[in-house]
């Protein structure tokens, strides 16, 4: 029953955390914990279950997988742990996949959606133009929406966090500006905007006109999007965008196009 529930929740992208005793009394004991639902299984002691599940749900919230140590009845303070065997519990979090929202149903979109799927993202493609935003053109996307950026980000923006990404590939100010405004209102970890340096300079003027002038906001925009690796094809560009996302998420210094100068394609 534990495995069946675990598999079911993983497949449906629902959060769940698996606790396993890997050292100490009751080695191999397994418990499955789910926010707001009853536990399945036990680690062999009601108090240990209570304390370990409380910690595990915190780890799940943060998307962390770790090993934690307790006394046999969930003791955590050093005095209580004196002279008792240690129980080590492997806490494995299964968080929903990170999301990538791609605005603009262009050639680059299909390539980016494909690479994002390889990396495990839940991919949503959005464009206001019905003829372009079709499931047939983007079979790899999890969702294809025909709408404007504002309603999408109003409805889903609060779900976005540091692991998620918004890529704005439209090059069209009608679409770009509301998408950027909507993206800046979220806690999304990455905002990339496609376009040449000239396009970006013009875009900054339009953003100024609508009141987006805060340095902190503008610093969040990665534009021109992607790393300066000389990519030319949509697929190569997709790799450069995803590599930039990875580098920025883990805080590495990467050669972003934003930080270089001159033509993007040489």
């Amino acid at each position: 029953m534990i495995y069946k529930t675990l598999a079911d929740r993983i497949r449906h992208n629902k959060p769940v955390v698996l606790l396993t005793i890997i050292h100490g009394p009751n080695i191999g004991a397994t418990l499955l914990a789910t926010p707001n639902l009853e536990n399945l299984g036990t680690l062999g002691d009601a108090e240990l279950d209570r304390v370990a599940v409380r910690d595990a749900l915190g780890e799940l919230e943060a998307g962390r997988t770790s090993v934690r140590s307790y006394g046999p009845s969930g003791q955590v303070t050093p005095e209580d742990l004196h002279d008792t065997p240690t129980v080590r519990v492997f806490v494995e979090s299964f968080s929903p996949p990170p999301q990538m929202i791609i605005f603009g149903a262009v050639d680059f979109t299909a390539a980016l959606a494909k690479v994002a799927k390889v990396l495990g993202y839940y991919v949503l493609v959005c464009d206001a133009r019905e003829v372009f935003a079709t499931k047939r053109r983007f079979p790899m996307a999890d969702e294809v929406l025909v709408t404007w950026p504002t309603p999408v980000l109003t409805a889903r923006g609060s779900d976005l966090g540091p692991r998620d990404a918004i890529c704005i590939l439209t090059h069209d100010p009608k679409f770009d500006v509301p998408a950027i405004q909507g993206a800046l209102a979220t806690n999304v970890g990455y905002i990339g905007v496609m376009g040449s340096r000239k396009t970006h300079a013009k875009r900054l003027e339009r953003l100024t006109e609508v009141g987006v002038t805060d340095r902190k906001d503008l610093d969040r925009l990665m534009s021109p999007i992607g790393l300066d690796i000389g990519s030319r094809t949509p697929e190569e560009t997709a790799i450069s965008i995803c590599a930039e996302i990875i580098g920025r998420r883990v805080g590495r210094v990467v050669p972003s196009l934003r930080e270089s100068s001159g033509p993007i394609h040489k």
Partner: protein
Amino acid sequence: MREILNDIDQWRSQNKRIAVARVVDIEGSGPRDPGAAMAVNQDGEVSGSVSGGCVEGAVVAEALEILASDSPGRLVKFGYSDDEAFAVGLTCGGVVHLFIQPLNW
């Protein structure tokens, strides 16, 4: 775990006994993070991986032994400094800690 669910489901439907090995900790440079999982059935068939291919063979042997012995699970360690458990290591010089247990839950 996600990538091995289909194989596990198939083996379960055939009533095969299954062991699951999961990376629980790494020291130094390790090829796969905690949570990387591999399943082994009673016939020695494998799904998933827990390293870059360096220790999988030894994991299969350990998993089959656990399935044969009714063990509730075992913590095993592979790495450069490990000469007691297995004569295999990680070429990257790290240490990987695995928990291998029967999938009886």
